């Protein structure tokens, strides 16, 4: 038997300062397009860039981080920060302020959104210190985190999982696919986003959203106010 506990204590933690402060260490986030010339919109593959007068506006829910509007002569201005979540849903009642149980459902993601969720327990983010737990049973779940564009085969399991959760409950759509269908769009095989199937309380843009953006969305659902560097533009 090895003394793994000791080994754990000896190792560096690199824990983020979030949520006390916004942490933007290099590589934590891909950043986001901010504003730019109207000509930038032509190359956008998903219609996330929309022309408004002489400028391009960004609908972040549809941005798939293809980086096309980052380079070249019609480049947009990018900012190395995080596109935070947004949504009209009210937070959970006060009893959930310090702890929630989350059910994760894959509705056809590409693997990168789930991979970012898998990073949440890593020492850099340490999800559990915030009182957030991934639960094995929908009966114990307060929040349903959904990734992916909702494929035909996952539509019913998604509805069943939601139905099995006790009230009060909230739904968080994570990533461009869950928000808008992303590159997969609405099609014969995909619903084109969670909102096509279930009421969504919060949406986290990004392809994939960086782990901090998911943490922020969960804290918002818990009713904990956070430092936010610039409001999102959905």
């Amino acid at each position, binding site marked *: 038997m090895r003394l793994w506990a000791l080994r754990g204590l000896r190792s560096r933690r690199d824990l983020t300062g979030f949520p006390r402060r916004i942490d933007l260490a290099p590589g934590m986030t891909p950043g986001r397009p901010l504003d730019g010339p109207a000509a930038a919109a032509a190359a956008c593959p998903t219609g996330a860039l929309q022309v408004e007068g002489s400028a391009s506006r960004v609908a972040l829910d549809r941005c798939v*981080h293809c980086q096309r509007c980052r380079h070249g002569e019609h480049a947009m201005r990018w900012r190395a920060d995080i596109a935070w979540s947004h949504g009209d849903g009210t937070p959970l009642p006060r009893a959930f302020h310090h702890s929630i149980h989350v059910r994760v459902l894959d509705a056809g993601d590409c693997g990168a959104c789930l991979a970012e969720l898998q990073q949440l327990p890593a020492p850099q983010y340490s999800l559990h210190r915030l009182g957030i737990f991934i639960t094995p049973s*929908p009966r114990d779940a307060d929040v349903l985190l959904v990734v992916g564009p909702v494929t035909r085969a996952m539509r019913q399991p998604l509805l069943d999982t939601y139905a099995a959760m006790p009230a009060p409950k909230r739904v968080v759509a994570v990533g461009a696919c869950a928000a808008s269908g992303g590159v997969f769009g609405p099609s014969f095989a995909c619903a084109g986003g969670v909102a096509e199937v279930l009421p969504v309380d919060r949406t986290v843009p990004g392809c994939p959203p960086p782990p901090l953006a998911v943490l922020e969305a969960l804290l918002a659902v818990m009713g904990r106010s956070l430092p936010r560097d610039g409001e999102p533009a959905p």
Partner: protein
Amino acid sequence: MTLPELLQALECDPALGAGATAGSVLALPLPATRLPHAAHVLARAPTRLAGIVCEQQDGRFALRYPFWLGAGLPWLELVTEVGAGETVPSISPRLFAADWHEREIEDLFGLTFSNHPFLGNFVLHDEIWPEQAYPMRHDFRAQDADAAPSPYQPRAMLHAEGAFLMPLGPVYGGVNEAGQFLLDTLGEDIQHCQTRLFYKYRGIEKRAEGMAAADALLLVERMNGTNAFAHALAAVQAMERAAACEVPPRAQVLRSFWAELERLRSHAATIAGLCKSTALAVPTSLAYQRVEELLRLCGAHAGHRYLFGLLSPGGLAQDLPDAAARTLATAAQAVAARLADLAEELLFDNSFIDRLEEVGLIDAKTARRYGLVGPVGRAAGHAGDLRIDQPYAAYAQCAPRPAAAEEGDNLARLRVFLAEAAESARLLPLLAAQLPAGTARGVFTPRAAAALGWSEAPAGASACFVRLRADGRIARLRLMPPAFTNWHAFHLAAEHFAYQDFPIILASFGLAMAEQDR
């Protein structure tokens, strides 16, 4: 076996092979009736089936069966054609690796393979899709999918006193991909495992049709976002071959560079997943910490943690300055060294080793019969690596040293993943040191043509067939990823082991369902 001998055995003119070298594709047109014989010959030669490409051409269907041969030899592609309503002779009885490919074509194109052991209810689950909907046909309309489906009941394979069928998934307790395993058990041991996939079928190949090449590339990246670069590399190379487009040397070296960095991160994540499956909390944390470090290195230098948007037809969408490449290589090597330290400690932990050793067995015969690829194949004595056998990008001048094991158990797979991660870390500075000067952006002038592209993805050989229309848009995109090859045999590793071993065996395969389902 030499190429002329092989051609002779295939009853083709041996002179056909003159001048065919590694990296070229030798097409062998033949009538469909000769397919089973050709498959019989190729199954006994050192060749590997990459997949089957089906294309609808008006009322007819063209079928291609690309096989890759060993180092120095070209690809062989059996090419045949059938009319609508004609059956295709199945090659699965002679070459079992073709089994799932034939089932997939049957489901999506409505072609019938005569003499195939089991067909139906594969990609399009019976309880969701109507019988007569064939999405890959040109006349398919979205509303065809809305007709009434048929009922489905999971079928128990084991009929014995006290036996029960345990479905696992498609929704799980943790953070897992959607897929289902139907486990027949008598209590402790899994007697029979059925892998039911395609819950994540997003219809990528269909959606790509009519798209601009560069847009289709975004879809390929998101077939498996955790191995985006490798698969997009196979696709972009197919586009470039079709368009006879020269890729600048700098882009070629950078492509290998990013591909090795992705392999390192992907293997690190597989190793982290394996730690997690054994419920060792500290090693799990330490391994995911390494993964995060690699993700941040990618994010900082490529603008994206999963390397999305880097490739573009003709080259790379963005350059990486020489100095940045060297810094990145050194930093990635440091992370790899910390991962190796952790592995060293793990391999001395008996309680960990006990869960891996002689568990999840795949023997060499199975690996060969299923044509297993990547670390899963190499850990079961089945060599083969496209970087070595059919070099692309910069691998001809910077070849990896192959990793291999014979045991085919969880531990052998872990060792191969570790060795390959270390090898990628070794290649990074070598590649960074030989970056040629010049541009990394290429010029891509599409034309109406088709070609095959390939790469060695983290999970194994990935092939992609692209047909471009005259306007440069996609007429057909066929993705043949390694997960599709390897999931085929996964159930065999799970059978006859205890139920609690299942998550560990699953993790040791390191396979993405998203990649398989497409």
